[in-house]
């Protein structure tokens, strides 16, 4: 690579870094003050991009029209942020962290469908920036003038934000609230207004990040999750709550991606940021410029875990067992799905509830188990039964590798690293056409003859998933499971009585990954095909939603949650094109009505909604 192309790639990277920085800075600011990981931040970015597109169309492709549109779009997104804060989040600041996450994820679903309804599913390509569309010649290469401007905007926003935070009363309040918002309230500061203003600023930054990209990338509906994954990575690499860190990380990742393209390894771009994140987190667990997070001051201790009572479990099993006798093929298929997802959710609950390790990327093991089963069957030519048995261990092997890194971290950082590994897995599956058939997925993954009937396959599913769930539940009451719970309650004390907590957590990760892999493999053979969506962020969040819907604090919660969620999604998807939004609204209502995640309340709701 010549010196000139090196410089050009560097400039490309810096231009890409600006928007990445803006959206991450907003995410970080909001997290710092409200302690909410705003999953919808990528959606706000997406709205900024769509908004700028429409406003430019309305205001005209002139420099004035363009820049007015960018600024108005950013401000409009800021107002959307205010609405989100006032209507939803303000009601749940006292709810458990994970419930807030669930709420912001529901907002992702709603915004996606709103965008679908307003702008349609086609990619929208915006105009090039009027007045800045000309190329500038640097070292004999041409680079768009607009990109050079973007390179400047990042540091300018960084400086402005720094001034705002370090030199104004608002900044002092924000930094104080980041540490102890209750105390700020006791000193006479109206928290609600402060939070709303923080949300506004954070959303404006996301909207601006999106709007500025309009000449560089088309507006499309997949941006929400891909941008939020990028922003998570930047925030975590830079250190939560550190603006300078976010900038550094955005530059690092933007430039690394640009060089991947420049060197001709464009396939690596999806993976490279996650590799950087993995490396940084292992060396500096709190990010480049981050500090260890303040420990929660009044963490409600987890209640004691009760083993499931016998008769409801027997009743459930009987209920499940009689389903095929009803003779309704649809219900049998639905129940097969529910059984798979129940095991998936229980395995996720195993690590995030009793073991206290929240995973945003549990789909990695589900999807890898599914692909392993399909590949062992189709490519390696193994009998279906053997493929099904071996597949979970392949997923478990990945959990061995991923888990080794993950158990070194805790809290939000751990969650984000799990997301990174899931995204790496997804990228590989998505891009390795020769092996996985890429985005088309693998087809013809059918079970053996004796299992080809839906009821037969259903009974096998019920047996395997039931055994998996029983194994996980049993393990929770063994010394091994007690160590996990003890380690969640007090890592300090666990270490002080000679327990190698990490080793136990690692083992828990592998066990949960293996059983998620079993769920995935069973699922793959039930459908006859498997696509990359089984490894996707959306699949991971489905798992989270199931666990949280049912309630983290009980063992049966995840099973109930899996059943409700799977049924609800299926029902809504058959009723309306906008099933995501409908699902999102349902989740929001549940979160707002039962902010403490009461399983009982959900059960009542479920009873009311069940088709009569």
């Amino acid at each position: 690579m010549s010196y000139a192309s090196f410089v050009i790639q560097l400039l490309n990277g810096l231009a890409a870094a600006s928007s990445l920085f803006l959206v991450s800075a907003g995410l970080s600011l909001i997290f710092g003050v409200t302690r909410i990981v705003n999953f919808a931040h990528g959606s706000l970015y997406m709205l900024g991009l769509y908004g700028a597109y429409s406003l430019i169309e309305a205001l005209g492709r002139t420099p004035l029209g363009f820049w007015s549109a960018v600024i108005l779009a950013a401000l409009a997104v800021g107002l959307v942020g205010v609405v989100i804060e006032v209507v939803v989040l303000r009601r749940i600041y006292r709810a458990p962290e994970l419930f807030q996450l669930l709420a912001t994820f529901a907002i992702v679903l709603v915004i996606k469908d709103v965008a679908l309804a307003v702008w349609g599913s086609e990619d929208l390509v915006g105009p090039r920036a009027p007045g800045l569309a000309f190329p500038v010649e640097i070292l004999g290469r041409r680079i768009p003038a607009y990109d050079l401007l973007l390179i400047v905007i990042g540091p300018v926003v960084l400086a402005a934000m720094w001034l705002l935070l370090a030199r104004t009363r608002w900044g002092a309040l924000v930094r104080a609230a980041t540490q102890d918002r209750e105390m700020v309230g006791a000193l006479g500061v109206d928290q609600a207004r402060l939070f709303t203003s923080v949300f506004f600023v954070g959303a404006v930054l996301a909207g601006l990040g999106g709007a500025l990209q309009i000449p560089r990338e088309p507006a499309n509906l997949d941006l929400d999750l891909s941008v939020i994954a990028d922003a998570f990575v930047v925030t975590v690499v830079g250190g939560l709550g550190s603006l300078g860190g976010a900038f550094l990380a955005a530059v690092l990742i933007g430039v690394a991606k640009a060089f991947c393209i420049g060197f001709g390894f464009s396939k690596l771009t999806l993976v490279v940021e996650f590799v950087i994140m993995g490396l940084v987190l292992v060396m500096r667990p709190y990010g480049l410029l981050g500090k260890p997070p303040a420990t929660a001051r009044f963490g409600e201790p987890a209640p004691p875990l009760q083993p499931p009572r016998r008769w409801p479990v027997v009743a459930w099993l009987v209920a499940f067992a009689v389903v095929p006798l009803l003779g309704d093929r649809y219900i049998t298929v639905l129940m097969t799905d529910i059984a798979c997802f129940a095991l998936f959710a229980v395995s996720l609950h195993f690590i995030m509830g009793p073991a206290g390790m929240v995973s945003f990327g549990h789909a990695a093991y589900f999807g890898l188990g599914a692909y392993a089963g399909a590949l062992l069957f189709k490519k390696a030519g193994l009998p279906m039964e053997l493929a099904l048995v071996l597949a979970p261990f392949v997923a478990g092997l990945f959990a061995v590798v991923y888990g080794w890194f993950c158990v070194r971290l805790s809290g939000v950082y751990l969650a984000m690293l799990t997301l990174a590994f899931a995204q790496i897995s997804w990228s590989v599956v998505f891009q390795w056409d020769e092996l996985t058939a890429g985005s088309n997925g693998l087809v013809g993954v059918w079970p053996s003859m004796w299992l080809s009937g839906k009821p037969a396959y259903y009974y096998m599913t019920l047996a395997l998933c039931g055994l998996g769930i029983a194994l996980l539940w049993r393990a929770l009451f063994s010394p091994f499971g007690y160590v996990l719970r003890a380690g969640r309650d007090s890592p300090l004390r666990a270490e002080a009585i000679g327990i190698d907590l990490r080793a136990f957590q690692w083992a828990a990760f592998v066990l949960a990954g293996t059983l998620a892999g079993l769920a995935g493999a069973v699922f793959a053979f039930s459908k006859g095909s498997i696509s990359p969506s089984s490894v996707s962020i959306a699949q991971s969040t489905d798992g989270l939603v199931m666990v949280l819907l049912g309630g983290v604090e009980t063992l049966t919660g995840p099973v109930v949650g899996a059943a409700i969620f799977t049924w609800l999604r299926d029902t809504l998807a058959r009723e309306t094109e906008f099933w995501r939004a409908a699902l999102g609204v349902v989740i929001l209502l549940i979160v707002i009505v039962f902010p403490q995640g009461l399983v009982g309340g959900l059960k009542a709701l479920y009873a009311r909604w069940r088709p009569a």
Partner: protein
Amino acid sequence: MNGVVLRVDALHKAFGGVQAVEDVAFAVSAGELLALIGPNGAGKSTCFNMLNGQLEPDGGLIEFEGRNIVGMSPRAIWRLGVGRTFQITATFASLSVRENVQMALYSHAGKLTQFLSRFGSELRPEADALLAQVGMLDQAERPCGVLAYGDLKRVELAMALANQPRLLLMDEPTAGMAPRERVALMELAARLARAQKIAVLFTEHDMDVVFSQADRIIVLDRGRLIAGGLPAEVRANRDVQAVYLGSGH
């Protein structure tokens, strides 16, 4: 010296160029209670965290039963026979009192890796014996998350005794307790330690507890030991009065 369990010599630690602990040396013998006192920020916690393996010293020697433990992990130090309690109680809130103690016993017995047997079926009499020692047997079934603060301290003491330690490190054992409870807890710890020939090193703010329970006292100020000796000697020391005790005592 005979009976010395813990010997510290020339201990150093600096944070960002500031000496937090400087040239500290002392020793504790079996069955002896040594109090480490000093104003806030004197380096007591830093000192403590180096002894229990949480922090690595910049220089110096920490010898437990004649063996240098500098650089060992907290886990390894515990395995050698060092128990500890925390300034802010650290127990397993979702487990019962008995299960908390059993957890320490299981760990000591190397029985934690069992995967399918039910936890709690073994080592129950041993756990109950420890709980009886600290007067918590009647609350054995309650989860630690609902206990009163003073009771948590007792549970911690029982857990710290589970590995039959020869050295007990207690960081502000009575912080946050009512005055009468404080002396009672420390009396209990002292009685158990003397009976079992355990060496005890503790930090403490409450001078009533220190002067009534400690066999010897050492005083830390700005990272350095400024005095040491029997309670009466320390109480009479002018330097100690100036930096710490004030004229009221």
